[in-house]
C-alpha cells in the first residue's frame, strides 16, 4: 500500500496539484472575473428587471441572426446580464449587458476565471478527443486511491492526529504537514474527489448508458434532464414577452412547493414560429443543482413542458452541487477554499517530502540525481503559482482592443503556459536556488498584480474597501496574503538549507 501511495503520488501529484489549485481559485471565479474585466465592476443588480426592454437595446442586433442564445440573469456575484451565443466566425461569444440600461459593456476579450481557470480545473484545456476529461477523471480516481492507501499506510500514525512540528527538520515538518492535512481534512478531500467524479459519471462509464439505450442514446438527456428540442418552422414570428414567461415560471414553481426564481433562459429558434424558451430554476438556496426547468412556446408563452428533477438524478445533482458550490453561502465558500488549499498543501508537501527523501537517498548512494525530476517538482508547485500570477499581470498589462489575432485571451493564456515553462527551465538551470528564487518571484508578481490593478483601474485597495467592492478588495487582499506566504516559505526553505552549509563548513 505504501508503494502504491508513493507511485500514484509521484505520477499524479503534479496534475492533482494543478486541479486542486485551479479548483480552489474557481470558488472565486466570478470575483476573479470582476478583477480581470473591470468593465463588469457594476454595483449590485436591481431587484426587478425587464428583459424585454433590455433586449431591445443594443443587444438586439447581436442576436438577430443567432439560431439560439442563452441569457443568464444577474446575481450579486455577477452583476451583469450575460448573453451567450454562437457566432459563425468567432465561435462561442459571451457579452455582458448593464442590467439597468441594457447597454452592451465593452468586450474586454479576457477569459478570466470562468472561462480559463475553471475549465482548466476539469479539462486541463485538452480538447482533443476529450483527453482532458479522461486525465482529470483518472487523476480523481487516483486521488481516491491515494486517500485510501494513505490512510492504510499511516494507520499506526492515526495516534499522531494532531501532531505538527514546524520547527523540526524540514523533512519531519513536511511529513507532519502531509499527515495533518491528509487526516484532518480527509472528509473534505474524499467528498470533493468523489463528487467531482460523479459530475462526469456518464462520460466515464458510457457502457452503462449504451446498455440501456442501445439505439436511442439521444433520449437520455431528454428523459433525465428535460432537454427539449423541436425543429424550426421557417415561418417568421416575433418572440413573446420574456418577462411574462418569467412571472409564469415563478408562479408555477411556487405552486409546486419549490419556490424559486429563474437563473437562466435559453431561447431556441428566436424569431421563428417554432421558437421555445427554456427557463431554469435557480439553486442558490440549496446544495443540489436541480434540473428543474420549464419550456414555454416562444411566440404564445404557453407552457409546453415541465421537468422536475427525478430522484436518482437528484442524487447525482446533489453530489454535483456539493462540488460546484454555486449556492449562496459565504461561510461554506470560504471553508471550501480552506479545504482546497489544504488539498494543495497535502499534495505539495507529499511531493516535497518524496523529493527530499529521494535526494537524501541519492546522496547516500553517491548519485547525482536526475535534475529533471527536481525541476518538475518545482514547476509543479511554485511554477503553477507563478503561471497564475503571470496570467493576472498579463491581463492588466495587455491593451483591451487587440483586433488582429492572436487575440487578448490567447495572449493571456500564452502568458500562463509560457511562465509555467519558464519556471521549469529556470528550475532545471539553477536547481539549488530554484525554490527560493521562484518563491520570491511569485511574491513579487503578486505585489505587481495588486499595484497594476490600482494603476490601471483606479480601484486600489483603499478605494475598493471604502466603496464596498468586496470582490476587488478580496482579490487584492488574497494576492497580498499570497505574497506574504511565498516570502515566509522562501525564508523557511532558506533556514532548512543552512544546516547543510554548516555541515559542509565543519566536515
Amino acid at each position, binding site marked *: 500500500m505504501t508503494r502504491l501511495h508513493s507511485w500514484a503520488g509521484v505520477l499524479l501529484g503534479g496534475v492533482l496539484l494543478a486541479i486542486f489549485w485551479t479548483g480552489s481559485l474557481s470558488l472565486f471565479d466570478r470575483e476573479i472575473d470582476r478583477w480581470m474585466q473591470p468593465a463588469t465592476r457594476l454595483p449590485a443588480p436591481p431587484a426587478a428587471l425587464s428583459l424585454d426592454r433590455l433586449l431591445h437595446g443594443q443587444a438586439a442586433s447581436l442576436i438577430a441572426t443567432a439560431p439560439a442564445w442563452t441569457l443568464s440573469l444577474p446575481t450579486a456575484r455577477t452583476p451583469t446580464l450575460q448573453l451567450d451565443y454562437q457566432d459563425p466566425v468567432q465561435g462561442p461569444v459571451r457579452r455582458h449587458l448593464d442590467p439597468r440600461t441594457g447597454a452592451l459593456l465593452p468586450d474586454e476579450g479576457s477569459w478570466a476565471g470562468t472561462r480559463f481557470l475553471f475549465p482548466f480545473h476539469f479539462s486541463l484545456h485538452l480538447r482533443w478527443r476529450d483527453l482532458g476529461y479522461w486525465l482529470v477523471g483518472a487523476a480523481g480516481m487516483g486521488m481516491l486511491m491515494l486517500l485510501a492507501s494513505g490512510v492504510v499506510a499511516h494507520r499506526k500514525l492515526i495516534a499522531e*492526529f494532531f501532531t505538527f512540528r514546524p520547527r523540526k527538520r524540514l523533512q519531519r515538518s513536511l511529513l507532519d504537514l502531509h499527515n495533518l492535512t491528509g487526516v484532518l*481534512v480527509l472528509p473534505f478531500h474524499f467528498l470533493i474527489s468523489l463528487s467531482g467524479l460523479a459530475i462526469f459519471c456518464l462520460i466515464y462509464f458510457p457502457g452503462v448508458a449504451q446498455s440501456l439505450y442501445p439505439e436511442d442514446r439521444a433520449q437520455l438527456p431528454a428523459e433525465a434532464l428535460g432537454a427539449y428540442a423541436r425543429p424550426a418552422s421557417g415561418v417568421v414570428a416575433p418572440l413573446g414577452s420574456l418577462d411574462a414567461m418569467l412571472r409564469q415560471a415563478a408562479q408555477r414553481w411556487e405552486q409546486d412547493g419549490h419556490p424559486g426564481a429563474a437563473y437562466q433562459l435559453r431561447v431556441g429558434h428566436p424569431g421563428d414560429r417554432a421558437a421555445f424558451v427554456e427557463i431554469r430554476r435557480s439553486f442558490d438556496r440549496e446544495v443540489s443543482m436541480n434540473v428543474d426547468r420549464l419550456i414555454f412556446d416562444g411566440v404564445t408563452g404557453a407552457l409546453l413542458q415541465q421537468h422536475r428533477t427525478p430522484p436518482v438524478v437528484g442524487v447525482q445533482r446533489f453530489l454535483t452541487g456539493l462540488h460546484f458550490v454555486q449556492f449562496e453561502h459565504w461561510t461554506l465558500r470560504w471553508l471550501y477554499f480552506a479545504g482546497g488549499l489544504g488539498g494543495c498543501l497535502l499534495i505539495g508537501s507529499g511531493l516535497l517530502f518524496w523529493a527530499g527523501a529521494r535526494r537524501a537517498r541519492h546522496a547516500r548512494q553517491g548519485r547525482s540525481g536526475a535534475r529533471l525530476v527536481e525541476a518538475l517538482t518545482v514547476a509543479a508547485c511554485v511554477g503553477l503559482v507563478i503561471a497564475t500570477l503571470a496570467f493576472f499581470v498579463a491581463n492588466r498589462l495587455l491593451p483591451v482592443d487587440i483586433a488582429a489575432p492572436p487575440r487578448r485571451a490567447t495572449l493571456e493564456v500564452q502568458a500562463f503556459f509560457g511562465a509555467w515553462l519558464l519556471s521549469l527551465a529556470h528550475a532545471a538551470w539553477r536547481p539549488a536556488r530554484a525554490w527560493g528564487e521562484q518563491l520570491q518571484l511569485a511574491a513579487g508578481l503578486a505585489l505587481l498584480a495588486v499595484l497594476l490593478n490600482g494603476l490601471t483601474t483606479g480601484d486600489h485597495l483603499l478605494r475598493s474597501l471604502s466603496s464596498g467592492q468586496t470582490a476587488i478588495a478580496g482579490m487584492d487582499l488574497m494576492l497580498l496574503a499570497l505574497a506574504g506566504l511565498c516570502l515566509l516559505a522562501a525564508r523557511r526553505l532558506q533556514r532548512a538549507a543552512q544546516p547543510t552549509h554548516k555541515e559542509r563548513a565543519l566536515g
Partner: protein
Amino acid sequence: MADLWPALLAFLLAYLAFARLALAQAVHRQAVAPGASAGRGTRVFSATLLGSSLALLLVAEGGGFGALLWLLLLSAAAFCVAQTLSWRPHWLRWLLRTRTEHADANELR
C-alpha cells in the same frame, strides 16, 4: 453577521471537543502542562460537544447545508487545535486545570 453565530458556536464546540481529545494523548498533554495527569470522561465530553454542534447546525442551517458545514467545521477545528498545540500550547492549559480541579474535588469527597 447574525447568521455567522451558529457556525462560530459550532466551531467553538468542535474546537473544545478536539482539544480535549488531544489532551488525552500523553505527548500533547506534556507539551501543554508537563507532569499533568489524564482526566476521565474524555470520550463522553467530546462526543457530546460534537453531537451538539451537529444538532445546532442542522437546526440553524437545514439538512444539506448543516451537515456539510459541520463536516468542514470539524476539519477546521481539528486543524486549529493542531496549530495551537504547535505554536501556543499554553493556551490550552486552562482545559487541563479545570479537569485536574474536578479530579481533586472528587478525591476529597
